[in-house]
């Protein structure tokens, strides 16, 4: 509250209107609302602030400084969390996972960040990260039903690729190169994950009609089954049904718009039908998402190879092989080598 009126520090009896109303010693300065002399005006402009108020002010200043220093760290984390939430809404799970990693570096135990990390890593099929995030939130109860249902859906999505009948899975892996054995096993399981594994091994025999038939049966049970849809893109590509292959890719991208494998697959489909410009766009997109992803490097190697840049394509193959020495999985280099070394005609 503030009030503005003249001072009454001098008693009315001895009051001289020609002098300063405050000190009654000097003549007042004209031109102001209150008749104050120059000295009184100056001193009242700087009306003293009591010491305890100064200390109070210093305390507030200290609190403000502490707040500003602390806030920097939290603003950065909050912005990354916000970006991750937006990315999850837009199904850009690779971006989401990266943003969440930055948040969890600072706040490893944050419930929402870990829950979102479960979602992002599930759709990226990053089992290790999913498990770490799961361990941090497994025992925490939440009333956020939306978050809970999102996490549950993601958990189901990542769990679909794990075969439940591990004994049967071992039999399938053991029979991987024996088409007759694989076909014999096919009818002895109802599990779609196992059927898809069998179809995957049969794909190597180039019996695309059989693979397509198995995949279609799997998709009748679960139309969104990732491994089956993924295999279907390869079958459609190799049977020259390019538009259908791309349509299946788009179905997969509806689950994760930043699925590098699927974007790279689109590049390979476009290359197969000699749409090299379109393929180059998809390969660049995949590489932009992760320059060290082997699927993306493979797509770039193929684009370079068919554009006559053999040196670059061989460099990409070398990069993939270097990665494979760490991962122990040589699937991509085995698939790529015959194409860019000229022993297999891709198109």
């Amino acid at each position, binding site marked *: *509250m*503030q*009030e*503005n*009126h*003249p*001072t009454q520090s001098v008693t009315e009896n001895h009051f001289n209107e020609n002098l300063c109303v405050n000190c009654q010693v000097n003549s007042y300065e004209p031109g*102001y*609302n*209150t008749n*104050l002399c120059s000295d*009184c*005006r100056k001193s*009242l*402009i*700087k*009306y003293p*602030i*009591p010491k305890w*108020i100064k200390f*109070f*002010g210093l305390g*507030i200043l200290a*609190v*403000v400084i*502490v*707040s*500003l220093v*602390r*806030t920097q760290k*939290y*603003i950065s*984390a*909050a*912005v990354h*969390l*916000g*970006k991750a*939430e*937006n990315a999850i809404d837009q199904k850009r799970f690779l971006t989401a996972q990266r943003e969440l990693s930055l948040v969890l570096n600072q*706040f490893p*135990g*944050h*419930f929402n960040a870990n829950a979102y990390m479960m979602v992002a890593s599930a759709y990226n099929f990053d089992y290790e990260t999913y498990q770490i995030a799961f361990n941090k939130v497994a025992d925490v109860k939440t009333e956020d039903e939306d978050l809970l249902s999102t996490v549950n859906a993601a958990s189901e999505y990542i769990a679909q690729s794990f075969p439940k009948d591990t004994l049967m899975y071992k039999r399938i892996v053991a029979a991987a190169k024996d088409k007759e054995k694989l076909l014999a096993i096919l009818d002895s399981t109802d599990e779609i994950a196992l059927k898809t594994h069998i179809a995957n091994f049969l794909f190597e025999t180039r019996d695309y009609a059989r693979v397509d038939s198995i995949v279609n049966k799997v998709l009748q049970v679960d139309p969104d089954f990732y491994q089956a849809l993924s295999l279907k893109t390869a079958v459609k590509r190799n049977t020259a049904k390019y538009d259908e292959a791309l349509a299946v890719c788009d179905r997969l991208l509806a689950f994760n718009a930043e699925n590098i494998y699927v974007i790279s697959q689109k590049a390979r489909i476009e290359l197969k039908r000699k749409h090299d410009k379109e393929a180059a766009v998809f390969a660049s997109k995949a590489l932009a998402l992760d320059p060290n992803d082997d699927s993306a490097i493979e797509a770039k190697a193929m684009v370079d190879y068919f554009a006559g840049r053999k040196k670059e394509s061989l460099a990409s193959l070398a990069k993939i092989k270097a990665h494979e020495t760490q991962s122990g999985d040589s699937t991509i280099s085995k698939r790529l080598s015959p194409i860019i070394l000229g022993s297999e005609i891709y198109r």
Partner: protein
Amino acid sequence: MFIPGILISIATFPGVIVHELAHQLFCRLFKVPVFEVCYFRPENPVGYVIHEPAQKVYQTVFISVGPFIINSLLCFVIGFSAALQFKFDSANVLDYLLMYLAISIGAHAFPSTGDANSLWNAVVKSNTTSWLSKIVVTPIVGFIYVGALGSFFWLDIIYGSAVAMGLPYLIIKFLV
């Protein structure tokens, strides 16, 4: 629930002190003599600043709404880090204290009816001020009265909470 305003003012006394200090600092800024300051007392009004009427209308306006600027700013800065701590489930005793301080200061951002009266008398009722000044100042006075009326419905506390807790989230959303 009805809680007498004086009790709320006592509970949020840091905001009253900042409010009066803001009036005083704006007086000092515009070289307006101050005759008396009460930073806080447990009776109505809980604080006041008595000063000479300012020479110019804008000075009168700034002296009146100074607390709205200073208190809101401090409320936001102090509340920001505490609000983000709450967001990251890592709030401790210090954050609860910071949040109390921020809301207390924010709750006293609104100028009082006394401030509105001063502004009304100095500008709208004055014969020396221009019509333009009166047109500009009248809604400000109305706004202050609405704010004072709103304090019956805890508008002051709601405002402090919104600036301390809501604004940080809005800004983060804007930055994302």
